[in-house]
């Protein structure tokens, strides 16, 4: 799980070009949207594609996204339970 969280932080920094952030600066429970990392709706689309491409998870219900993308912790938990690759 710890490796997955580290992997997710690295991928998010790289995919979303969060140049000013390092892996160490993102806490597992930091909110990804709003006050935390400040991600927006375009980033949400990037994360949905990332889940599909790297972990084989297709998110079909938009309502699911809100809880899955709350933090690195919630993302990692969901991926562990649902990944197909």
């Amino acid at each position: 799980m710890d490796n997955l969280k580290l992997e997710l932080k690295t991928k998010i920094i790289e995919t979303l070009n969060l140049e000013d952030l390092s892996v160490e600066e993102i806490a597992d429970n930091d909110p990804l949207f709003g006050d935390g990392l400040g991600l927006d709706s375009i980033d949400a689309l990037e994360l949905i594609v990332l889940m599909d491409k790297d972990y084989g998870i297709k998110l079909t219900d938009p309502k699911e996204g809100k809880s899955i993308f709350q933090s690195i912790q919630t993302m990692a938990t969901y991926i562990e339970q649902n990944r197909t690759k």
Partner: protein
Amino acid sequence: MKNCFINGLSAISTQDTFESDFVNSLKTVNPNENILRATEPNYKAFIPPAAIRRMAKGIKMGVATSAKALEEAGLTQVEAIITGTGMGCSQDSEKFLKNILDNHEQFLTPTSFIQSTHNTVAAQIALRLACKGYNFTYVNGAVSFESALLDACMQITAADIASVLVGGIDEYAAHTFSLYELVGFIKDKKNVPFSVLNPTTKGTVFSEGATFFALENTKNASTYAEVVDIQLRNKLTSAELPTFIASFLEKNNLETSAIDVLIVGNNGDVEFDGFYKEAMHGFKDSIHLYYKHLSGEYNTASAFGLWVAANILRQQEIPEILRINAIEKKGYRNIVLYNQYRGLDHSLVLLKSVN
């Protein structure tokens, strides 16, 4: 009819033009490089960090230079934003197309796609300023910037618009430039060192940059120059060039002797150098200047030429590094810029001092 004045300008180029003053910013470039890259400033002073992370270099260069030109003119808003770009946002276009190929048309992400269109820079500037006015981008090869400038001046002189941001932007993109090298548009590295003024080989030294101008219908104490006229022609033979220039001058009631400075777009391509020789031949008594040995060639490099001309007219000073001939003048009132690329996209711009 109103006149069109340059009241603010800014350039990001291979030179330190964004932060240094005009005369001190111009330095000789490495003659052994066939591709030059723009010197980037710290963008954070001009673009919010959240916006920077999605922007490719061309967008950052365009947004920063437009902000600085606007600031210099003392404007916080304009009535129109007009840009010119030959290749548009090539970096994001390449990124998006590469993703399509690498991922077999699956998993396409939105960021590079939505920022890959040619009008992205004009749109980003409008978003930043919350400008709902006229917004247009010209993609016309090597007259992309001049087309934008012509439209900008027409907006001011004929459409009663008071202020326009106009600029030219083109960025380096690895795959596009590798194709240019393959077809010989970029000089072969085997032929170093490269000379822009006395070339012996085909192709040019390619580059990138963004140059923006804040144009207004009124002049003030810090106005750079007046843009008097712009003439474009897609195709010409070098034999037709003198007539093209003569009719342009005649239209503006000027003799060649009234032109103090001719700024030519020589780019070191021996194949098309004849056009510039012909142009200079027609202005025997004028000071001849060039600038692409400093900026490199790109579709909107001529905007850098206009940046040079506007600075000369305001400062009444010509840096030695720009000179082709040794003719001296007491002052500089009228400047003509002539540019073409590979025998196409000929442009003439007439700039006048306001002093």
